[in-house]
């Protein structure tokens, strides 16, 4: 039997890893990620790996994360507990609440129900990756302006879903917005303000939508 500490953090302990951040663990050469991952995939294909920790390279917010993870570690766990990227939240850990939503190649997914090892070769975006040059993204700013949160636990997940929606469909209707947000739950009941934030971010005039939103 392994000791619990080792089991939880694989070969590199969390503290050692965090100490290494900024020096070697994160390389900013995002362009190489896909190539690295493809190499890894080829090298690992049809080869049985694990159950112990193995090298895993993730591309998160344009940076390479080089981690040592057991195959059973989820992407959410890799982000939060092995990399200190705590923007994605753990709610249900069962694909049922949306708090852990991140973008994989631009599409929202639940990071709690995806193994980190499978996310190699894909571009992962978390809420930490949205601000550019110190400026919040329009969606983030709209959430603040419209007071679209209370406890804030669901907020990063909603922001990722809305960001993906507006990239695909810059001027969504109310129905399209609800459909796109249906995989995110808010226990505090902030949905009406979230919808207002979406329309602000989309640059849609509120006048014709306000009545509907009041009755959501």
């Amino acid at each position, binding site marked *: 039997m392994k000791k619990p500490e080792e*089991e939880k953090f694989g070969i590199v302990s969390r503290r050692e890893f965090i100490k290494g951040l900024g020096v070697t663990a994160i390389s900013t050469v995002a362009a190489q990620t896909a190539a690295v991952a493809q190499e890894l*995939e080829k090298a*690992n*294909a*049809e*080869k*049985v*790996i*694990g*159950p*112990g920790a193995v090298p895993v390279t993730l591309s998160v917010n344009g940076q390479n994360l080089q981690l040592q993870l*057991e*195959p*059973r570690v*989820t992407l959410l766990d890799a982000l939060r507990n092995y990399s200190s990227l705590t923007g994605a939240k753990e709610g249900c*850990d*069962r*694909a049922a609440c*949306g708090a852990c*939503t991140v973008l*994989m190649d631009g*599409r*929202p*997914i*639940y990071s*709690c*129900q*995806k*193994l980190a*090892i*499978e996310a190699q070769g894909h571009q992962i975006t978390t809420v930490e990756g949205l601000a550019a040059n110190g400026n919040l993204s329009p969606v983030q700013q709209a959430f603040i302006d419209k007071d679209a949160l209370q406890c804030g636990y669901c907020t990063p997940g909603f922001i990722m*879903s809305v960001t*993906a929606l507006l990239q695909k469909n810059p001027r969504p209707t109310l129905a399209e917005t*609800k*459909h*796109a947000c*249906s*995989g*995110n*739950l808010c226990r505090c009941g902030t949905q009406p303000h979230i919808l207002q934030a979406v329309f602000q971010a989309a640059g849609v005039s509120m006048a014709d939508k306000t009545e509907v939103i009041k009755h959501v």
Partner: protein
Amino acid sequence: MNAFEYATALSPDSARSLVGNQGAYLAGGNDLLGLLKDYLINADILVNIKSLPGLNKIEPGRRHWTLGTLVTIAEIEDNAGLAQAFPGLHDAAMEIASPQIRNVATVGGNLAQHSRCWYFRHRDTVCLKRGGDLCYARESDNRYHSLFTGNTCISPVVSSLATTFAALDATAIVLRNGKETPMKMDALYHRAWENPLAHNSLDPGDLILRVEIPTSRRSSAYMQVSDKHAFDWALVSCAAAADVVDGKLAHPRVALGSISPVPHQVEAANQFLNGKTLDDETASAAADMILKEARPLEHNAYKVPMAHALIRRTLLKLKG
């Protein structure tokens, strides 16, 4: 979640040999990781099948369309040609779970998802389906359970794709013992009708390769009722498909989900509808036939009138 080994398969045959008898295929992972996290199943190895070549395509054809097992629910939802050919399939896909799930969930994984019975899903109750000796649902809260079953377990099939594929008379092609084995939806779930331990008829190592949907029914529809407006399994779902020629139904089929361990189909009702012009009276008579043998339990009798209404409404959506 217990630790497991992991491998990425590059061909169906190597997937089969890697998975052995104690492993599991990993597709979208939405269901599988939940089962593992709650210790409902054990797998010594997960074989990632998402790199299997050629199985991620939607291919139109004159006699049938082919959906590779790795096609995602979102790809079904977004494919305009498919939506035109099979509107019912589009509507079913659109209502499955959430965008985050649809973006990764696959055809094969959706068909092979395990029971959602809340006693089965509770890690501390070992019911009949997990090898215990009691069905807890029969004597307890069975509001989400079946109106029909051939065994003691009353957990229904909840795959919306299975319901729709049954109405469209689609065939899953399963790699079994090195041979491609065609299975219609009744065959794919028959074992769950007979055996409380089964979720479907797949043996360990059986690999769904693709689903073929005949083009002979140009009209199709799907409807479901859930507790929540979105992001919820159906209490009852219904799919219907037919060709409508001069206002008359040709080779119609109706299937229901969430009320039986198999997609519920009554051949006599399909035959009754054949050649008929649809009106509420005809649809209602068909619904009577489809639900005649229903055996409601203490808490799920509401499903009978709900299914009756759904059958009528779904049939009346079929257009010429």
